[in-house]
């Protein structure tokens, strides 16, 4: 609600209304009430007046005081005094830290060119929107994450761009400040939840509690997930898809809907391009065959297609699982087609195009200022010469090409790194051993974080302490609203916000990118499209633009104000002219995973289980392993195994097991559960043990349990987006005594 006070006194506490945004926490922007005494955070409560979360909070934000005041928290800038990885650090001043970083990056720039410095990004935290800008000031276009194929969010974003013109989300009333009561909104009759478990992970600007509220109001669910999640257990139809075959599933759904003419003919006629060509392509993928591929009974797959198409309205919410297949871009292409041809696009309770609120952009990947870089600099963006879709789609580098280049040094060496808000080694890095070798070659590495992580221990020369969200002012433009993060406490030690660090450092390199004097000036600049300053937003509180439906009829989706979608033809491109011009398949298709029962039957004999990783738990990625009340809930890395499979292998619940494949071997603790298919296992990810020794070779014990060691880099789709990650092969066997 607008115009609510943002600070008051209550019962001996000062209460500050604020907006959560990692670190720590997650990608979202929940409303929180920060209870403080003498500049210290005492407790956190959900803000019932923030329409986004309506008072609900996750354990992560509730445990926030423990994250802020943990004894391991980084308090001062430090420099490495021993060898890299020895864990010997010395406190230094901010001036010395900045002087060193400036000097070392400038040396590298002179010797090899500024592009030989890369900036490592993690996931969408309150820094991604400005991190690129610091790198551009340094003179490098290379902002990058170490996840093969940029296989999180980016494939979805890119594919929607090429079909519907912009990102799309399920409409659970989140655009309205009065939420479920808004008279223009409709409860979805059916919601498809695809490759995501939002009640636990709250991913991609979408809260799981919205689904629960829709369920309370009668929404039926179709859940597409290789694991039986809580949502799947409550679904009308649960499709237990074979990992790596979401693309076949999507084509199968389309086949039923097109063949049985369950689509909205008027919308197809008026607002889509290439329906006939799509139909021909889909006809080559009959549901019978797709059902076989996905290990789903044909009747079930067909029933889901009918239920989705016949319910009005129907919404689809898609998660990261579809990104983690090499033809994931084309799975998303099918999903965009499903929402469009069934007439669920831009209708209340269907799927809506997501545009930045009031035009305020906080890109989750690089970008702010990328096009102000000279052409001569931009051309060095790693992988853009190989992947034209990446070059036109997102101002970020290709991790797969970067890794190769780190080893070959062709066309130029990589010599410096800026690691901000990412504990890449045990978490985002696919095949971390290779990244480890690559980063060990750096001349200089600076990092910013809340804690000393395995990544910092292994690579960093200088480490800067970052502020958590109660220690800073900021802005959250979370698709549906604008909301301010309000500083509520004294900073721990000398920590600074990422924005302050990027501003102070950025100015030393290039004032053109960082002309401002203070953080608030940057926030004011960011808010300019909304015609508001930070102080005004702070006074107003969460501010909602609302949404009009069928914006394509009203000229509200295209920058030129014409009616239609923001694509070259102005229609939803079922045949993507954009992809066609780039030389990619303009129509969806599916390819079997690089390794799997069909592609590599010999290997499958040796490694008869499909391995998935990346399931979110109580933690946010690699965060929170030192937070007592969270760790207590999930104390060790577990691998989920079907009881029948475990029985055959003589594995009991709680046994440590080796998980081995063609690449490597790790161990985790067995959890026997029927929620996974007997032919697959699901291994934890992102683990490290803050209580174990930090210095090499231990690195907080992360290597032993790191499931990304079993996954290859480079199994990327033709567009450069999406890679075979959640679908490799493995076998398991018990860890013997003495092997731990």
């Amino acid at each position, binding site marked *: 609600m607008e115009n609510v006070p943002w600070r008051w006194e209550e*019962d001996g506490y000062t209460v500050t209304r604020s907006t959560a945004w990692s670190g720590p926490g997650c990608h979202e922007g929940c409303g929180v009430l920060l209870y403080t005494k003498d500049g210290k955070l005492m*407790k*956190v*409560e*959900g803000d*019932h007046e923030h329409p986004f979360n*309506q*008072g*609900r*909070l*996750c*354990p992560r934000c*509730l*445990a926030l*005081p423990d994250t802020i005041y943990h004894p391991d928290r980084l308090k001062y800038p430090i420099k490495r005094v021993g060898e890299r990885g020895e864990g010997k650090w010395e406190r230094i001043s901010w001036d010395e830290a900045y002087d060193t970083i400036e000097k070392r990056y400038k040396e590298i720039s002179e010797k090899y060119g500024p592009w030989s410095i890369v900036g490592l990004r993690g996931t969408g935290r309150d820094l991604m929107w400005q991190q690129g800008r610091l790198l551009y000031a340094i003179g490098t276009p290379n902002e990058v994450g170490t996840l093969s194929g940029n296989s999180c969010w980016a494939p979805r974003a890119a594919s929607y761009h090429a079909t519907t013109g912009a990102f799309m989300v399920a409409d659970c009333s989140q655009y309205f400040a009065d939420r479920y009561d808004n008279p223009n909104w409709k409860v979805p009759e059916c919601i498809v939840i695809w490759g995501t478990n939002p*009640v*636990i992970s709250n991913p991609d600007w979408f809260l*799981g*509690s919205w689904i*629960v*509220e829709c*369920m*309370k109001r009668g929404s039926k669910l179709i859940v597409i997930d290789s694991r*039986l999640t*809580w949502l*799947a*257990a*409550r679904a009308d*139809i*649960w499709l237990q898809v074979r990992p790596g075959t979401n693309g076949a599933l999507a084509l199968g759904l389309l086949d039923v809907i097109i063949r049985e003419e369950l689509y909205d003919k008027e919308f197809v006629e008026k607002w889509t391009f290439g329906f006939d060509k799509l139909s021909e392509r889909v006809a080559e993928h009959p549901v019978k065959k797709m059902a076989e591929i996905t290990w789903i009974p044909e009747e079930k797959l067909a029933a889901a297609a009918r239920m989705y198409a016949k319910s009005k309205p129907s919404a689809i919410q898609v998660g990261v699982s579809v990104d983690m297949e090499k033809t994931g871009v084309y799975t998303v292409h099918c999903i965009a087609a499903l929402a469009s041809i069934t007439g669920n696009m831009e209708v209340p309770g269907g799927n809506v195009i997501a545009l930045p609120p009031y035009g305020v952009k906080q890109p989750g990947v690089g970008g702010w200022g990328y096009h102000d870089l000279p052409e001569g600099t931009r051309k060095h963006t790693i992988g853009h010469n190989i992947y034209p879709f990446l070059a036109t789609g997102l101002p970020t580098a290709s991790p797969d090409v970067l890794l190769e280049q780190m080893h070959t040094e062709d066309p130029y060496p990589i010599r410096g790194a800026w690691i901000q808000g990412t504990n890449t080694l045990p978490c985002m890095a696919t095949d971390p051993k290779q990244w480890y070798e690559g980063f060990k070659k750096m001349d200089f590495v600076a990092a910013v974080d809340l804690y000393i992580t395995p990544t910092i221990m292994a690579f960093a020369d200088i480490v800067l302490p970052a502020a958590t969200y109660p220690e800073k002012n900021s802005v959250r433009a979370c698709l549906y609203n604008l909301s301010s993060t309000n500083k509520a406490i004294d900073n721990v030690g000398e920590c600074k916000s990422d924005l302050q660090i990027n501003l102070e450092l950025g100015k030393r390199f290039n004032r053109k990118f960082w002309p401002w004097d203070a953080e608030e000036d940057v926030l004011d600049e960011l808010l300019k499209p909304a015609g508001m300053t930070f102080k005004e937003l702070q006074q107003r509180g969460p501010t909602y633009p609302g949404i009009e439906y069928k914006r394509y009829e009203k000229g509200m989706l295209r920058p030129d104000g014409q009616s239609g979608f923001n694509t070259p033809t102005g229609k939803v491109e079922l045949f993507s002219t954009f992809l066609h011009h780039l030389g990619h398949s303009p129509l969806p298709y599916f390819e079997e995973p690089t390794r799997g029962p069909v592609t590599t039957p010999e290997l499958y004999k040796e490694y008869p289980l499909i391995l998935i990783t990346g399931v979110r738990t*109580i933690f946010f990625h690699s965060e929170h392993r030192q937070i*007592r*009340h*969270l760790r*207590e*809930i999930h104390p060790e890395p577990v691998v989920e195994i079907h009881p029948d499979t475990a029985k055959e292998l003589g594995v009991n619940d709680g046994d440590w097991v080796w998980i081995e494949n063609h690449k490597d071997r790790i161990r985790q603790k067995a959890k026997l*559960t*029927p*929620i996974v298919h007997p032919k697959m296992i699901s291994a934890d990810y992102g683990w490290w043990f803050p209580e174990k020794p930090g210095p090499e070779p231990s690195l907080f014990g992360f290597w032993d349990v790191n499931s990304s060691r079993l996954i290859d880099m480079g199994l990327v789709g033709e567009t450069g987006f999406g890679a075979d990650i959640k679908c490799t092969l493995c076998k398991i066997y018990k860890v013997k005594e003495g092997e731990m």
Partner: protein
Amino acid sequence: MTRYGLLINYEFCTGCHSCEVACKQEHNIPVGKWGIKLSEIGPWQISKNKWQLSYIPVPTDLCTLCKSRTKKGKLPACVHNCNAAVMKYGPVEELAKEMAGNSRMVLFAPK
């Protein structure tokens, strides 16, 4: 004296653990002890397309029903922050009435 209690609609409890952590933070309850503890019922298969998987948070003897909060007109910490808004605090007679028309409800009257 009116007895108060907690009504849980476990049709929609997602098992997110927020009630546990909210309670621990509010009352400074150490590792290994709980004011309210989540139980998982399932998962097992009931029939071809039906599964048993429910979560129910159970208040322990450490639960004070957040007296210090409720006497000031605030909700108990677990209720206030529940991620699925499935917890209700009130006089047990009133809560029992709410149970009547609903399934998958459980009412606790802690000590």
